[in-house]
């Protein structure tokens, strides 16, 4: 399996009144036809990572170091012109709030057609035909009529479908999804998730799916990277992460979901709050909240341990596990 995306040692700082170390020493890869979930709570750096892949972060206030390679190209070195060809055609993105992501003054059809004309050099008639085809692909009922609709005339679920149609209109290799179902009602969320799963297979796309909801990750991801304080603390296959997490944060996050908890039974929680990100980490970021923390965790950065063929955890517990398995 070749990797479409390779991120190595990615650091992202926001500068300004105060410095925020949003992403710290991040490394991951995305294989062909794979759905990778970035799972984490607010402020863990998952959306920032996603935006960095498309270079959507504000240039003046952001310092990025490390390497981001997409299809072998160095994304951080692309100039403006290359970027605008890259966005939409190679990599495309869908957002949490389609009402904000779509342009309110153009019809859905016009917005999709514009993208197709810009990237594929098609004429208006062909582009509108593609727009119609895309609306049918995402199963918008009476698609022909909806081409003429403005975003505000559609319901939340329909708007999200329209945004997916727009993102996929130039058949990108990679789709970045930033919590696309979070703002939707439960009965609509599951429809959109199933649609994305189907389209991913149909188009043979690779997807990076950002979510805070483990249930959503279970429905769509093949692999999961759990993020905390701008770092990936554990990554592996969905089943491994869900069934036998190694990192205490990943464990805590899974245990604290209310799924199946009975009344009267206390919910497991992670005590404390995430660290402020005003300094680059010099020790384990989770140590102050961790029940297994030792002196070493507070003194130095935790080891990034390869636990299995496709599994990495950033914790001394993982190291111990590997040693125990070797003896």
């Amino acid at each position: 399996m070749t990797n479409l995306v390779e991120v190595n040692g990615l650091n992202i700082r926001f500068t300004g009144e105060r410095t925020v170390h949003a992403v710290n020493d991040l490394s991951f890869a995305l294989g062909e036809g794979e759905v990778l979930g970035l799972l984490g709570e607010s402020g863990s750096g998952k959306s920032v990572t996603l935006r960095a892949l498309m270079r959507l972060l504000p240039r003046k206030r952001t310092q990025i170091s490390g390497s981001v390679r997409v299809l072998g190209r160095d994304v951080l070195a692309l100039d403006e012109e290359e970027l605008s060809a890259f966005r939409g055609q190679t990599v495309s993105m869908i957002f949490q709030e389609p009402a904000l992501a779509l342009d309110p003054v153009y019809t859905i059809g016009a917005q999709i057609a514009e993208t197709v004309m810009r990237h594929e050099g098609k004429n208006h008639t062909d582009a509108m035909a593609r727009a119609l085809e895309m609306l049918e692909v995402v199963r918008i009922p009476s698609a022909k009529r909806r081409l003429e609709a403005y975003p505000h005339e559609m319901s939340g679920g329909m708007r999200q479908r329209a945004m997916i149609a727009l993102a996929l209109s130039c058949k990108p290799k990679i789709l970045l999804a930033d919590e696309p179902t979070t703002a939707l009602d439960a009965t609509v969320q599951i429809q959109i998730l199933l649609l994305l799963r189907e389209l991913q297979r149909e188009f043979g796309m690779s997807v990076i799916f950002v979510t805070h909801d483990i249930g959503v990750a279970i429905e769509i991801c093949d692999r999961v990277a759990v993020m905390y304080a701008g770092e990936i603390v554990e990554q592996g296959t969905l089943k491994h992460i869900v069934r036998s997490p190694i990192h205490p944060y990943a464990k805590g996050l899974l245990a604290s979901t209310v799924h199946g908890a009975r009344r009267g039974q206390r919910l497991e929680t992670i005590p404390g709050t995430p660290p402020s990100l005003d300094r680059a980490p010099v020790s384990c970021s989770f140590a102050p909240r961790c029940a297994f923390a030792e002196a070493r965790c507070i003194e130095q950065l935790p080891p990034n341990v390869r636990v299995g063929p496709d599994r990495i955890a950033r914790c001394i517990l993982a190291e111990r596990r590997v040693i125990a398995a070797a003896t």
Partner: protein
Amino acid sequence: MNDISAPVDMLEPIEDRGGAAQPLLQVNGLTKHFPVRGDLFSRRKTVRAVDDVSFSIAKGETVGIVGESGCGKSTTARLLMHLMTRDSGEIIYDGMQVGRALSLRELRRGMQMVFQDSYASLNPRLTIEESIAFGPKVHGMTDAASRVLARELLGKVGLRPENFANRYPHEISGGQRQRVNIARALALSPRLVILDEAVSALDKSVEAQVLNLLVDLKREFGLTYLFISHDLNVVRYISDRVLVMYLGEVVELGPVDRVWDAPAHPYTRALLAAMPSSDPDHRTETPPISGDPPNPIDPPAGCRFHTRCPFAEPLCANATPKLTALDRLGHQAACYMAIPGSGHSRAPAKQGDTA
């Protein structure tokens, strides 16, 4: 500061009148319609936000309300708090009609609310201590006593007063702010607390902390909760009984386990089936229902769910099914399939008087 060692005064709660058997809150036929302007020549339209909703909350109980956006759950909460005026219906607090036997001022003391947006519901110009002390002061407590109470309550919600009392809302995290809102609600010694999506904006690990806190406070202060949420897992965890709402109407209600294990309304079944799976080997394969919830402006006639219901028959579009008891545990559903002899092909046959 004055002597901290003095016993902490709390406002006297509104006294219990009817005893344990009388519901703390009785709601009959609650209705709220919002007129919306149609197009220039079309007739006036109405959002039937809450339509003939009746339920009761027993003392010490936690009642959950679930439903999707636009189903009227938040409007119901606002009507109960008298934050907006109802079109019709009765709200009876412990046997007392609000506005007659019980003044609005007293009701606000007996019933408090925690909102979803923890930041918008605190005054940004007041310190946390001042925010919590504000209510008791309005109700006649001295400044010093109310500040002592505020600090005491901060401790109860797990925030150390010495660290938090003098901070402003923007200086603390969302989970901490929601704890402050809970303390603020408790400052008036309410017996009923309405939690409107109070944990929905929080991260999962923080949500679990706040839910544990709510359970503890309920026990310590003998509270009754009305818990509104779109998250079915959370509602199941915290509630004794649950109401399922769809487009302004209650379609099913009953003990939470009965409703979850044997949902009688197809909408409840769809909601439950729409929850993401928790098992990677058993992902959801087909969506339980298609389409979005319809616009609550001029909702469909008859059963409002019939436009999305896989079992809809002609009679469903003609008249609205009434909430009907399914057992003696208080499980009720408003669906012709659950009403014996209703004429729906899937309805149970009419039984004797024992049904």
